[in-house]
């Protein structure tokens, strides 16, 4: 566990969220990308502070695919050659918000690489981010 790293994630989370709010006010769908990155930073912060990732044994007790090094994973999707990604680790450690997290990731991909959000509004993606961040904050040390 590293408090400076956790603080860095918190700082980046707040910056991403503030940018998202500004973009939301102008109706810009890139707000969703920033909401996702705020949630991503909140997840990385939670990993950093989660005592279940303090050792390989503790991590494997949660899921055999987790290890202490899962704390440092920075890619989104798991892959056979490199193990679980952030999306998977969120699912293993925080199942209550995993579906919302994965959907928010998918929505950010739609904005970044495609023609925009399908079927949901910017405000709905904000609500996803709020739910995720609230739950991750509630679970972890402050």
């Amino acid at each position, binding site marked *: 566990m590293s408090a400076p790293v956790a603080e860095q994630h918190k700082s980046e989370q707040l910056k991403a969220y503030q940018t998202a709010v500004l973009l939301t006010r102008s109706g810009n769908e890139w707000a969703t990308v920033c909401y996702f990155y705020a949630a991503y930073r909140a997840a990385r912060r939670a990993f950093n502070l989660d005592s279940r990732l303090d050792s390989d044994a503790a991590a494997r007790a949660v899921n055999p695919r987790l290890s202490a090094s899962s704390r440092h994973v920075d890619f989104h*999707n*798991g*892959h*056979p*050659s490199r193990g679980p990604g952030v999306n*998977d680790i969120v*699912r293993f450690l925080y199942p209550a918000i*995993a*579906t*919302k997290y*994965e*959907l928010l990731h*998918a929505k950010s*991909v*739609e904005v970044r690489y*495609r*023609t925009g959000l*399908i*079927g*949901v509004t910017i405000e*709905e993606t904000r609500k996803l981010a709020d739910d995720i961040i609230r739950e991750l904050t509630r679970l972890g040390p402050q």
Partner: protein
Amino acid sequence: MAEIIDGPVMAEAVGVTSAGYLGGAETLRSLNVVVYPVEQRAVVWAGLRDTSLDAQLAAVAAFAEVRECYLDELEVELRFGEPDEPTSDRATAKAMELTR
């Protein structure tokens, strides 16, 4: 080194699995699977009949089971809508046929 997977065979398998977990023709207007054999990666494109937030959350939750099925073989990603890139050099399954 991992053996390179058979793209068309894997696309069909992932399509059948995905169609099953995502609810078949009742919930899907279309389902396409693009497999990238060298990268050990597949993208499942789900065209949902109901694109509301709740329906998309349900699809994501169900898709976690698909990902588990191919854990040791592929990175499997769910996207909504239709493929928007040329797919001629990849193995593609047009999976409405797979929901029969």
